[in-house]
Protein backbone atom coordinates (compact mmCIF):
# COMPACT_ATOMS: atom_id res chain seq x y z
CA UNK A 1 0.00 0.00 0.00
CA UNK A 2 2.71 2.41 1.01
CA UNK A 3 4.20 2.44 -2.45
CA UNK A 4 0.85 2.91 -4.05
CA UNK A 5 0.40 6.19 -2.23
CA UNK A 6 4.00 7.24 -2.35
CA UNK A 7 3.01 10.35 -4.22
CA UNK A 8 -0.12 12.10 -3.07
CA UNK A 9 -1.52 15.51 -3.68
CA UNK A 10 -3.55 17.68 -1.39
CA UNK A 11 -6.81 19.24 -2.47
CA UNK A 12 -8.43 21.98 -0.43
CA UNK A 13 -11.55 24.00 -0.61
CA UNK A 14 -11.99 26.93 1.70
CA UNK A 15 -15.07 28.22 3.47
CA UNK A 16 -14.49 31.69 4.82
CA UNK A 17 -16.95 33.48 7.07
CA UNK A 18 -16.67 37.23 7.42
CA UNK A 19 -18.74 39.42 9.70
CA UNK A 20 -19.83 42.37 7.60
CA UNK A 21 -18.94 45.92 8.56
CA UNK A 22 -22.33 47.36 9.37
CA UNK A 23 -23.56 49.59 12.16
CA UNK A 24 -26.59 47.44 12.92
CA UNK A 25 -27.31 43.73 12.81
CA UNK A 26 -28.53 41.75 9.81
CA UNK A 27 -32.21 41.66 10.67
CA UNK A 28 -32.66 44.18 13.50
CA UNK A 29 -31.35 47.53 14.65
CA UNK A 30 -29.10 46.28 17.46
CA UNK A 31 -25.53 47.52 17.38
CA UNK A 32 -22.75 45.29 16.06
CA UNK A 33 -20.02 46.92 18.14
CA UNK A 34 -17.49 44.35 19.35
CA UNK A 35 -16.75 43.98 23.03
CA UNK A 36 -19.95 45.29 24.61
CA UNK A 37 -21.14 43.87 27.97
CA UNK A 38 -22.91 40.49 27.59
CA UNK A 39 -26.46 40.55 26.27
CA UNK A 40 -26.48 44.34 26.03
CA UNK A 41 -27.04 44.41 22.24
CA UNK A 42 -30.16 42.29 22.02
CA UNK A 43 -33.79 42.78 21.07
CA UNK A 44 -36.79 40.53 20.34
CA UNK A 45 -35.51 39.81 16.83
CA UNK A 46 -31.94 38.71 17.58
CA UNK A 47 -33.09 36.87 20.73
CA UNK A 48 -35.56 34.98 18.58
CA UNK A 49 -38.42 35.92 20.88
CA UNK A 50 -41.78 34.49 19.80
CA UNK A 51 -43.52 36.81 17.34
CA UNK A 52 -40.46 38.76 16.28
CA UNK A 53 -39.71 39.12 12.58
CA UNK A 54 -36.55 39.86 10.61
CA UNK A 55 -36.06 42.80 8.23
CA UNK A 56 -32.88 42.69 6.14
CA UNK A 57 -30.18 45.33 6.35
CA UNK A 58 -29.61 46.89 2.92
CA UNK A 59 -25.96 47.69 3.69
CA UNK A 60 -25.24 44.02 4.42
CA UNK A 61 -26.82 42.95 1.14
CA UNK A 62 -24.71 45.53 -0.67
CA UNK A 63 -21.53 44.35 1.05
CA UNK A 64 -22.17 40.87 -0.29
CA UNK A 65 -22.95 42.21 -3.75
CA UNK A 66 -19.75 44.23 -3.74
CA UNK A 67 -17.78 41.20 -2.59
CA UNK A 68 -19.37 39.07 -5.30
CA UNK A 69 -18.40 41.69 -7.89
CA UNK A 70 -14.88 41.99 -6.51
CA UNK A 71 -14.56 38.21 -6.75
CA UNK A 72 -15.73 38.25 -10.36
CA UNK A 73 -18.93 36.35 -9.55
CA UNK A 74 -22.10 36.12 -11.53
CA UNK A 75 -24.91 37.79 -9.58
CA UNK A 76 -28.16 35.89 -9.25
CA UNK A 77 -30.72 38.50 -10.23
CA UNK A 78 -33.18 36.93 -7.88
CA UNK A 79 -31.92 35.49 -4.64
CA UNK A 80 -33.74 34.24 -1.56
CA UNK A 81 -33.04 33.43 2.07
CA UNK A 82 -33.46 29.93 3.44
CA UNK A 83 -33.76 28.65 6.96
CA UNK A 84 -31.08 26.25 8.11
CA UNK A 85 -32.60 24.30 10.99
CA UNK A 86 -30.57 22.93 13.87
CA UNK A 87 -30.62 23.09 17.64
CA UNK A 88 -27.85 24.74 19.59
CA UNK A 89 -28.03 27.06 22.59
CA UNK A 90 -26.25 29.86 20.72
CA UNK A 91 -28.86 29.81 17.92
CA UNK A 92 -31.92 31.52 19.42
CA UNK A 93 -34.48 30.70 16.73
CA UNK A 94 -33.08 27.19 16.31
CA UNK A 95 -32.63 28.09 12.69
CA UNK A 96 -30.09 30.30 11.02
CA UNK A 97 -31.33 32.56 8.26
CA UNK A 98 -28.95 31.74 5.47
CA UNK A 99 -28.90 31.10 1.75
CA UNK A 100 -29.06 27.79 0.00
CA UNK A 101 -29.58 27.13 -3.69
CA UNK A 102 -29.73 30.73 -4.90
CA UNK A 103 -26.93 32.61 -3.16
CA UNK A 104 -26.23 36.21 -4.16
CA UNK A 105 -23.02 35.47 -6.09
CA UNK A 106 -21.76 32.34 -7.87
CA UNK A 107 -18.95 31.19 -10.17
CA UNK A 108 -16.24 33.77 -9.53
CA UNK A 109 -12.51 33.65 -8.99
CA UNK A 110 -9.74 35.25 -7.02
CA UNK A 111 -6.18 35.63 -8.35
CA UNK A 112 -3.67 34.81 -5.65
CA UNK A 113 0.04 35.64 -5.85
CA UNK A 114 2.43 33.12 -4.40
CA UNK A 115 6.20 33.00 -4.99
CA UNK A 116 5.98 35.30 -7.95
CA UNK A 117 3.23 33.35 -9.65
CA UNK A 118 -0.41 34.19 -10.03
CA UNK A 119 -2.81 31.40 -9.33
CA UNK A 120 -6.51 31.61 -10.10
CA UNK A 121 -8.75 30.05 -7.46
CA UNK A 122 -12.36 29.66 -8.44
CA UNK A 123 -15.08 30.90 -6.10
CA UNK A 124 -18.14 28.68 -5.94
CA UNK A 125 -20.48 30.99 -4.05
CA UNK A 126 -20.82 34.08 -1.92
CA UNK A 127 -23.81 34.21 0.37
CA UNK A 128 -25.35 36.16 3.21
CA UNK A 129 -26.44 34.83 6.59
CA UNK A 130 -26.51 35.75 10.27
CA UNK A 131 -24.03 34.97 13.00
CA UNK A 132 -24.84 33.00 16.14
CA UNK A 133 -24.46 34.01 19.77
CA UNK A 134 -21.41 33.05 21.77
CA UNK A 135 -20.96 30.33 24.35
CA UNK A 136 -18.60 30.49 27.28
CA UNK A 137 -17.68 27.26 28.98
CA UNK A 138 -16.79 28.72 32.31
CA UNK A 139 -17.83 25.86 34.54
CA UNK A 140 -17.76 22.15 33.83
CA UNK A 141 -21.48 21.60 34.23
CA UNK A 142 -22.83 24.75 32.62
CA UNK A 143 -22.28 27.11 29.75
CA UNK A 144 -23.03 30.80 29.58
CA UNK A 145 -24.68 32.37 26.55
CA UNK A 146 -24.23 35.88 25.22
CA UNK A 147 -26.43 36.85 22.27
CA UNK A 148 -24.67 40.11 21.37
CA UNK A 149 -23.19 38.45 18.30
CA UNK A 150 -26.47 36.75 17.39
CA UNK A 151 -27.72 38.26 14.15
CA UNK A 152 -24.55 40.06 13.15
CA UNK A 153 -24.43 39.93 9.35
CA UNK A 154 -22.17 37.18 8.16
CA UNK A 155 -20.95 36.44 4.66
CA UNK A 156 -19.76 33.06 3.51
CA UNK A 157 -17.28 32.75 0.64
CA UNK A 158 -16.78 29.22 -0.61
CA UNK A 159 -13.96 28.34 -2.98
CA UNK A 160 -13.76 25.44 -5.38
CA UNK A 161 -11.22 22.74 -4.44
CA UNK A 162 -8.48 24.59 -6.32
CA UNK A 163 -5.97 24.88 -3.49
CA UNK A 164 -3.15 22.38 -3.27
CA UNK A 165 -1.03 23.18 -0.23
CA UNK A 166 -0.93 24.82 3.16
CA UNK A 167 1.01 27.73 1.63
CA UNK A 168 -1.67 28.23 -0.99
CA UNK A 169 -4.37 28.04 1.64
CA UNK A 170 -2.70 30.77 3.60
CA UNK A 171 -2.05 32.89 0.49
CA UNK A 172 -5.67 32.51 -0.59
CA UNK A 173 -6.91 33.60 2.81
CA UNK A 174 -4.53 36.58 2.81
CA UNK A 175 -5.63 37.67 -0.64
CA UNK A 176 -9.32 37.23 0.13
CA UNK A 177 -8.97 39.06 3.41
CA UNK A 178 -7.27 41.96 1.68
CA UNK A 179 -10.07 42.29 -0.87
CA UNK A 180 -12.71 42.25 1.87
CA UNK A 181 -10.87 44.84 3.92
CA UNK A 182 -10.24 47.08 0.91
CA UNK A 183 -13.85 47.11 -0.22
CA UNK A 184 -14.93 47.81 3.34
CA UNK A 185 -16.98 44.63 3.69
CA UNK A 186 -15.03 43.32 6.68
CA UNK A 187 -12.55 44.55 9.24
CA UNK A 188 -10.69 41.25 8.73
CA UNK A 189 -9.91 40.87 12.42
CA UNK A 190 -9.27 37.16 12.79
CA UNK A 191 -8.34 37.55 16.44
CA UNK A 192 -11.81 38.97 17.17
CA UNK A 193 -13.44 36.25 15.13
CA UNK A 194 -14.75 38.60 12.50
CA UNK A 195 -12.97 36.52 9.85
CA UNK A 196 -13.10 32.75 10.23
CA UNK A 197 -11.84 30.05 7.97
CA UNK A 198 -12.80 26.40 7.59
CA UNK A 199 -10.78 24.49 5.03
CA UNK A 200 -11.86 21.07 3.87
CA UNK A 201 -8.92 18.91 3.08
CA UNK A 202 -8.53 15.70 1.16
CA UNK A 203 -5.61 13.94 -0.38
CA UNK A 204 -5.47 11.70 -3.38
CA UNK A 205 -2.86 9.80 -5.37
CA UNK A 206 -0.98 12.24 -7.56
CA UNK A 207 -2.35 12.45 -11.07
CA UNK A 208 -5.85 11.25 -10.23
CA UNK A 209 -8.81 13.54 -10.43
CA UNK A 210 -11.30 12.07 -8.01
CA UNK A 211 -11.50 13.85 -4.66
CA UNK A 212 -10.54 11.89 -1.58
CA UNK A 213 -12.35 11.75 1.75
CA UNK A 214 -13.02 15.27 2.95
CA UNK A 215 -12.05 16.42 6.41
CA UNK A 216 -13.31 19.78 7.57
CA UNK A 217 -11.07 21.76 9.88
CA UNK A 218 -12.38 24.22 12.45
CA UNK A 219 -11.00 26.66 14.99
CA UNK A 220 -8.34 28.28 12.83
CA UNK A 221 -7.96 31.78 14.22
CA UNK A 222 -4.92 33.16 12.44
CA UNK A 223 -2.96 32.83 9.23
CA UNK A 224 -0.45 30.81 11.14
CA UNK A 225 -2.99 28.35 12.46
CA UNK A 226 -4.45 27.97 8.96
CA UNK A 227 -0.99 27.08 7.71
CA UNK A 228 -0.11 24.82 10.62
CA UNK A 229 -3.50 23.15 10.79
CA UNK A 230 -3.62 22.35 7.10
CA UNK A 231 -0.01 21.16 7.08
CA UNK A 232 -0.67 18.93 10.06
CA UNK A 233 -3.79 17.50 8.52
CA UNK A 234 -2.10 16.78 5.19
CA UNK A 235 0.67 14.95 6.99
CA UNK A 236 -1.77 13.01 9.16
CA UNK A 237 -3.85 11.93 6.19
CA UNK A 238 -0.81 11.01 4.12
CA UNK A 239 0.54 8.82 6.87
CA UNK A 240 -2.80 7.23 7.53
CA UNK A 241 -3.15 6.34 3.88
CA UNK A 242 0.40 5.04 3.80
CA UNK A 243 -0.49 2.74 6.67
CA UNK A 244 -3.41 1.53 4.62
CA UNK A 245 -5.98 3.08 6.96
CA UNK A 246 -9.34 4.22 5.71
CA UNK A 247 -10.00 7.95 6.22
CA UNK A 248 -13.40 9.01 7.52
CA UNK A 249 -15.32 12.07 6.48
CA UNK A 250 -15.37 14.16 9.63
CA UNK A 251 -14.93 17.54 11.22
CA UNK A 252 -11.73 18.04 13.16
CA UNK A 253 -10.72 20.80 15.47
CA UNK A 254 -7.31 22.48 15.44
CA UNK A 255 -5.82 22.45 18.92
CA UNK A 256 -3.77 25.63 19.12
CA UNK A 257 -1.84 24.52 22.18
CA UNK A 258 -0.97 20.96 21.28
CA UNK A 259 -0.63 21.82 17.59
CA UNK A 260 -2.66 18.83 16.45
CA UNK A 261 -6.10 18.24 14.97
CA UNK A 262 -8.60 16.12 16.85
CA UNK A 263 -11.99 14.79 15.72
CA UNK A 264 -15.07 16.60 16.97
CA UNK A 265 -17.67 14.21 18.31
CA UNK A 266 -20.51 13.93 15.85
CA UNK A 267 -23.70 11.95 15.80
CA UNK A 268 -23.81 10.10 12.50
CA UNK A 269 -27.13 11.34 11.17
CA UNK A 270 -27.09 14.65 13.01
CA UNK A 271 -26.84 16.94 10.03
CA UNK A 272 -30.10 17.26 8.22
CA UNK A 273 -30.61 21.00 8.16
CA UNK A 274 -34.00 20.83 6.46
CA UNK A 275 -33.37 23.98 4.45
CA UNK A 276 -36.52 25.64 3.17
CA UNK A 277 -37.31 29.12 1.80
CA UNK A 278 -37.58 31.67 4.63
CA UNK A 279 -41.24 32.73 4.51
CA UNK A 280 -40.65 35.80 6.68
CA UNK A 281 -38.41 37.45 4.10
CA UNK A 282 -39.34 38.51 0.59
CA UNK A 283 -36.91 37.73 -2.25
CA UNK A 284 -33.96 39.92 -3.13
CA UNK A 285 -34.06 41.19 -6.70
CA UNK A 286 -31.14 42.98 -8.28
CA UNK A 287 -31.15 44.97 -11.47
CA UNK A 288 -28.43 46.32 -13.71
CA UNK A 289 -28.50 49.94 -12.45
CA UNK A 290 -28.10 48.82 -8.85
CA UNK A 291 -25.29 46.41 -9.67
CA UNK A 292 -23.51 48.90 -11.92
CA UNK A 293 -23.69 51.59 -9.26
CA UNK A 294 -22.04 49.22 -6.80
CA UNK A 295 -19.47 48.12 -9.34
CA UNK A 296 -18.59 51.73 -10.08
CA UNK A 297 -18.07 52.31 -6.37
CA UNK A 298 -15.51 49.52 -6.02
CA UNK A 299 -11.91 50.60 -5.53
CA UNK A 300 -9.08 49.26 -7.70
CA UNK A 301 -8.43 45.84 -6.17
CA UNK A 302 -5.07 44.68 -4.82
CA UNK A 303 -4.26 42.29 -7.64
CA UNK A 304 -4.98 44.85 -10.37
CA UNK A 305 -2.91 47.41 -8.55
CA UNK A 306 -0.09 44.97 -8.11
CA UNK A 307 -0.02 44.19 -11.81
CA UNK A 308 -0.04 47.88 -12.67
CA UNK A 309 2.84 48.73 -10.35
CA UNK A 310 5.02 45.95 -11.67
CA UNK A 311 4.10 46.33 -15.33
CA UNK A 312 3.68 50.09 -15.72
CA UNK A 313 5.96 51.48 -13.04
CA UNK A 314 8.67 48.86 -13.07
CA UNK A 315 8.49 48.29 -9.32
CA UNK A 316 9.75 44.96 -8.10
CA UNK A 317 7.14 42.58 -6.74
CA UNK A 318 8.58 43.13 -3.32
CA UNK A 319 8.29 46.91 -3.60
CA UNK A 320 4.74 46.61 -4.90
CA UNK A 321 3.78 44.26 -2.09
CA UNK A 322 5.10 46.67 0.55
CA UNK A 323 2.77 49.34 -0.75
CA UNK A 324 -0.24 47.13 -1.44
CA UNK A 325 -0.35 44.34 1.09
CA UNK A 326 -1.68 46.33 3.96
CA UNK A 327 -5.14 46.91 5.34
CA UNK A 328 -5.06 50.55 4.24
CA UNK A 329 -5.54 50.88 0.49
CA UNK A 330 -4.96 54.57 1.24
CA UNK A 331 -1.22 53.88 1.34
CA UNK A 332 -1.07 52.87 -2.30
CA UNK A 333 -3.74 55.50 -3.10
CA UNK A 334 -1.29 57.99 -1.63
CA UNK A 335 1.49 56.60 -3.77
CA UNK A 336 -0.66 56.89 -6.88
CA UNK A 337 -1.72 60.44 -6.08
CA UNK A 338 1.81 61.56 -5.28
CA UNK A 339 3.09 60.01 -8.49
CA UNK A 340 0.35 61.71 -10.49
CA UNK A 341 1.21 65.09 -8.99
CA UNK A 342 4.93 64.52 -9.39
CA UNK A 343 4.90 63.17 -12.92
CA UNK A 344 8.46 61.87 -12.66
CA UNK A 345 10.14 58.56 -11.97
CA UNK A 346 7.75 56.17 -10.12
CA UNK A 347 10.71 54.49 -8.47
CA UNK A 348 11.69 57.74 -6.85
CA UNK A 349 8.22 58.15 -5.32
CA UNK A 350 8.17 54.50 -4.36
CA UNK A 351 11.53 54.82 -2.62
CA UNK A 352 10.24 57.68 -0.52
CA UNK A 353 7.14 55.67 0.32
CA UNK A 354 9.12 52.57 1.29
CA UNK A 355 11.66 54.35 3.40
CA UNK A 356 10.33 57.49 5.03
CA UNK A 357 6.57 57.19 4.64
CA UNK A 358 6.17 53.60 5.76
CA UNK A 359 8.72 53.96 8.55
CA UNK A 360 6.74 56.81 10.08
CA UNK A 361 3.39 55.19 9.26
CA UNK A 362 4.33 51.91 10.91
CA UNK A 363 5.80 53.73 13.89
CA UNK A 364 2.48 55.56 14.30
CA UNK A 365 0.61 52.24 14.49
CA UNK A 366 -0.68 52.31 10.90
CA UNK A 367 -3.30 54.82 11.92
CA UNK A 368 -4.49 56.20 8.60
CA UNK A 369 -6.80 58.94 9.86
CA UNK A 370 -3.85 60.44 11.73
CA UNK A 371 -1.77 60.81 8.56
CA UNK A 372 -1.32 64.55 7.89
CA UNK A 373 1.06 64.62 4.97
CA UNK A 374 -0.59 65.11 1.57
CA UNK A 375 0.45 63.34 -1.63
CA UNK A 376 0.79 66.70 -3.45
CA UNK A 377 3.25 67.76 -0.79
CA UNK A 378 5.42 64.73 -1.33
CA UNK A 379 5.35 65.50 -5.05
CA UNK A 380 6.23 69.15 -4.44
CA UNK A 381 9.06 68.15 -2.17
CA UNK A 382 10.49 65.85 -4.81
CA UNK A 383 10.30 68.68 -7.32
CA UNK A 384 12.15 71.03 -4.96
CA UNK A 385 14.82 68.42 -4.69
CA UNK A 386 14.93 67.89 -8.46
CA UNK A 387 15.37 71.60 -9.00
CA UNK A 388 18.24 71.60 -6.54
CA UNK A 389 16.40 73.86 -4.13
CA UNK A 390 16.85 71.43 -1.27
CA UNK A 391 19.33 68.68 -0.75
CA UNK A 392 18.53 65.04 -0.12
CA UNK A 393 19.34 65.41 3.51
CA UNK A 394 17.14 68.47 3.88
CA UNK A 395 14.41 66.62 2.02
CA UNK A 396 14.35 64.03 4.76
CA UNK A 397 13.99 66.76 7.33
CA UNK A 398 11.27 68.44 5.30
CA UNK A 399 9.38 65.16 5.00
CA UNK A 400 9.40 64.62 8.73
CA UNK A 401 7.99 68.10 9.27
CA UNK A 402 5.36 67.50 6.60
CA UNK A 403 4.47 64.26 8.40
CA UNK A 404 4.00 65.92 11.76
CA UNK A 405 2.47 69.22 10.64
CA UNK A 406 0.83 68.58 7.27
CA UNK A 407 2.35 71.80 5.96
CA UNK A 408 3.43 72.10 2.31
CA UNK A 409 7.19 71.70 1.75
CA UNK A 410 7.67 75.24 0.37
CA UNK A 411 6.34 76.70 3.59
CA UNK A 412 8.55 74.45 5.70
CA UNK A 413 11.63 75.36 3.69
CA UNK A 414 10.75 79.02 3.98
CA UNK A 415 9.99 79.01 7.70
CA UNK A 416 13.05 77.08 8.61
CA UNK A 417 15.41 78.70 6.14
CA UNK A 418 16.28 75.38 4.54
CA UNK A 419 16.92 76.64 1.01
CA UNK A 420 20.07 75.49 -0.66
CA UNK A 421 22.91 77.97 -0.53
CA UNK A 422 23.32 77.89 -4.24
CA UNK A 423 25.52 80.91 -5.27
CA UNK A 424 29.33 81.08 -5.30
CA UNK A 425 29.13 84.41 -3.65
CA UNK A 426 27.31 82.95 -0.62
CA UNK A 427 29.47 79.86 -0.38
CA UNK A 428 32.92 81.47 -0.95
CA UNK A 429 33.51 82.76 2.58
CA UNK A 430 32.43 79.47 4.14
CA UNK A 431 34.64 77.41 1.85
CA UNK A 432 37.59 79.68 2.38
CA UNK A 433 37.15 79.40 6.11
CA UNK A 434 37.03 75.59 6.01
CA UNK A 435 40.18 75.47 3.87
CA UNK A 436 41.89 77.84 6.22
CA UNK A 437 41.01 75.71 9.22
CA UNK A 438 42.39 72.51 7.70
CA UNK A 439 45.62 73.31 5.88
CA UNK A 440 47.07 69.85 6.62
CA UNK A 441 44.12 68.13 4.93
CA UNK A 442 44.44 70.39 1.91
CA UNK A 443 48.11 69.53 1.74
CA UNK A 444 47.51 65.75 1.82
CA UNK A 445 44.85 65.99 -0.89
CA UNK A 446 47.25 67.86 -3.05
CA UNK A 447 49.67 64.95 -2.46
CA UNK A 448 47.07 62.59 -3.84
CA UNK A 449 45.18 61.44 -0.72
CA UNK A 450 41.88 61.77 -2.58
CA UNK A 451 40.02 60.03 0.25
CA UNK A 452 40.23 63.12 2.42
CA UNK A 453 38.33 65.28 -0.06
CA UNK A 454 34.99 64.12 1.30
CA UNK A 455 36.04 65.27 4.75
CA UNK A 456 36.21 68.83 3.48
CA UNK A 457 32.82 68.49 1.72
CA UNK A 458 31.39 67.26 4.99
CA UNK A 459 32.87 70.23 6.84
CA UNK A 460 31.22 72.66 4.42
CA UNK A 461 27.90 70.86 4.66
CA UNK A 462 28.15 70.95 8.42
CA UNK A 463 28.89 74.64 8.42
CA UNK A 464 25.87 75.24 6.18
CA UNK A 465 23.74 72.80 8.11
CA UNK A 466 23.29 70.73 4.97
CA UNK A 467 21.86 73.49 2.87
CA UNK A 468 24.72 73.85 0.46
CA UNK A 469 24.35 72.56 -3.09
CA UNK A 470 26.71 69.58 -2.98
CA UNK A 471 27.69 69.94 -6.68
CA UNK A 472 28.71 73.52 -6.24
CA UNK A 473 30.62 72.76 -3.05
CA UNK A 474 32.56 70.08 -4.89
CA UNK A 475 33.50 72.35 -7.78
CA UNK A 476 34.55 75.29 -5.62
CA UNK A 477 36.65 73.09 -3.31
CA UNK A 478 38.38 71.49 -6.30
CA UNK A 479 39.14 74.85 -7.88
CA UNK A 480 40.62 76.23 -4.71
CA UNK A 481 42.66 73.12 -3.80
CA UNK A 482 43.99 72.95 -7.34
CA UNK A 483 44.41 76.67 -7.03
Amino acid at each position, binding site marked *: MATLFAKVETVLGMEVHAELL*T*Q*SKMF*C*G*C*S*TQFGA*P*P*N*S*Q*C*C*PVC*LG*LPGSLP*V*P*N*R*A*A*VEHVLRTALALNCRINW*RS*IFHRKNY*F*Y*PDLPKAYQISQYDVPIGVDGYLDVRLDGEVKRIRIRRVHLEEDTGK*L*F*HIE*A*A*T*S*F*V*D*YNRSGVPLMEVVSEPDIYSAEEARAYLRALRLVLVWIGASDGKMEQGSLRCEPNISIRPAGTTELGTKVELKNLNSFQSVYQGVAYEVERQTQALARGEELVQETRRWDEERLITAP*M*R*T*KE*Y*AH*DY*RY*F*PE*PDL*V*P*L*EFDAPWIERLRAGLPELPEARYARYVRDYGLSEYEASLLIERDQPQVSDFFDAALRAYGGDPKRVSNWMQSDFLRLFNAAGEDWPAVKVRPEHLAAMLKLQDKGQISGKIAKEVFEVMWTTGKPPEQIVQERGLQVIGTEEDLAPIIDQVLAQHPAVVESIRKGEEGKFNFLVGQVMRATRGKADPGLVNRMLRERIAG
Partner: protein
Amino acid sequence: MPRLSIEEVEHVAWLARLRLSEAEKQRLTGDLNTILAHFERLQQLDTTGVEGTSHAVPMSNRYRDDEPRPSLPREEFLREAPDARDAFFVVPRIVET
Protein backbone atom coordinates in the same frame (compact mmCIF):
# COMPACT_ATOMS: atom_id res chain seq x y z
CA MET B 1 -45.18 6.13 -0.75
CA PRO B 2 -43.75 3.61 1.68
CA ARG B 3 -45.11 3.68 5.17
CA LEU B 4 -43.16 5.39 7.90
CA SER B 5 -41.40 2.91 10.14
CA ILE B 6 -40.98 3.39 13.85
CA GLU B 7 -37.24 3.87 13.26
CA GLU B 8 -37.98 6.74 10.89
CA VAL B 9 -40.31 8.25 13.47
CA GLU B 10 -37.49 8.01 16.00
CA HIS B 11 -35.15 9.73 13.57
CA VAL B 12 -37.63 12.52 12.87
CA ALA B 13 -38.19 12.92 16.62
CA TRP B 14 -34.44 13.27 17.05
CA LEU B 15 -34.30 15.95 14.35
CA ALA B 16 -37.11 17.79 16.12
CA ARG B 17 -35.54 17.23 19.56
CA LEU B 18 -38.69 15.60 20.86
CA ARG B 19 -38.24 12.90 23.41
CA LEU B 20 -41.10 10.49 22.83
CA SER B 21 -42.30 7.70 25.06
CA GLU B 22 -42.78 4.26 23.51
CA ALA B 23 -46.52 4.78 23.53
CA GLU B 24 -46.18 8.17 21.83
CA LYS B 25 -43.91 6.70 19.19
CA GLN B 26 -46.44 3.98 18.44
CA ARG B 27 -49.34 6.39 18.29
CA LEU B 28 -47.50 8.98 16.20
CA THR B 29 -46.35 6.34 13.75
CA GLY B 30 -49.99 5.37 13.28
CA ASP B 31 -51.22 8.98 13.09
CA LEU B 32 -48.57 10.07 10.63
CA ASN B 33 -49.23 7.11 8.39
CA THR B 34 -52.98 7.81 8.47
CA ILE B 35 -52.41 11.45 7.57
CA LEU B 36 -49.87 10.74 4.84
CA ALA B 37 -52.16 8.12 3.34
CA HIS B 38 -54.83 10.82 3.06
CA PHE B 39 -52.33 13.11 1.37
CA GLU B 40 -51.15 10.49 -1.08
CA ARG B 41 -53.26 12.08 -3.80
CA LEU B 42 -50.94 15.07 -3.87
CA GLN B 43 -48.46 12.76 -5.54
CA GLN B 44 -50.89 12.01 -8.35
CA LEU B 45 -51.07 15.64 -9.49
CA ASP B 46 -48.83 16.45 -12.41
CA THR B 47 -46.82 19.48 -11.37
CA THR B 48 -44.14 19.29 -14.04
CA GLY B 49 -42.73 22.74 -14.65
CA VAL B 50 -44.83 24.37 -11.93
CA GLU B 51 -42.91 26.86 -9.82
CA GLY B 52 -43.50 26.44 -6.09
CA THR B 53 -45.15 29.21 -4.05
CA SER B 54 -43.18 29.90 -0.90
CA HIS B 55 -44.44 33.46 -0.45
CA ALA B 56 -48.10 34.37 -0.59
CA VAL B 57 -47.75 37.88 -1.97
CA PRO B 58 -45.43 38.72 -4.86
CA MET B 59 -43.08 41.33 -3.43
CA SER B 60 -39.33 41.76 -3.34
CA ASN B 61 -36.52 44.02 -2.14
CA ARG B 62 -37.73 45.35 1.15
CA TYR B 63 -34.88 46.47 3.36
CA ARG B 64 -34.12 48.57 6.36
CA ASP B 65 -31.42 51.19 6.45
CA ASP B 66 -28.29 50.36 8.40
CA GLU B 67 -29.15 52.48 11.41
CA PRO B 68 -28.56 51.25 14.95
CA ARG B 69 -31.54 51.38 17.26
CA PRO B 70 -31.69 50.97 21.02
CA SER B 71 -31.59 47.39 22.27
CA LEU B 72 -33.80 46.03 25.04
CA PRO B 73 -32.73 46.61 28.64
CA ARG B 74 -31.19 43.29 29.60
CA GLU B 75 -33.31 42.72 32.68
CA GLU B 76 -36.49 42.85 30.61
CA PHE B 77 -35.63 39.61 28.85
CA LEU B 78 -33.20 37.98 31.24
CA ARG B 79 -35.86 37.90 33.96
CA GLU B 80 -37.78 35.48 31.73
CA ALA B 81 -34.89 33.03 31.43
CA PRO B 82 -35.20 29.71 33.28
CA ASP B 83 -31.58 30.19 34.40
CA ALA B 84 -29.47 33.32 34.19
CA ARG B 85 -26.38 34.55 35.98
CA ASP B 86 -24.11 37.59 35.72
CA ALA B 87 -25.83 38.97 32.63
CA PHE B 88 -25.65 35.61 30.84
CA PHE B 89 -28.21 32.96 30.00
CA VAL B 90 -27.11 29.71 31.56
CA VAL B 91 -27.51 26.27 30.01
CA PRO B 92 -26.49 22.79 31.11
CA ARG B 93 -23.36 21.07 29.87
CA ILE B 94 -23.03 20.98 26.11
CA VAL B 95 -22.21 17.72 24.43
CA GLU B 96 -21.21 18.00 20.81
CA THR B 97 -23.68 16.71 18.29
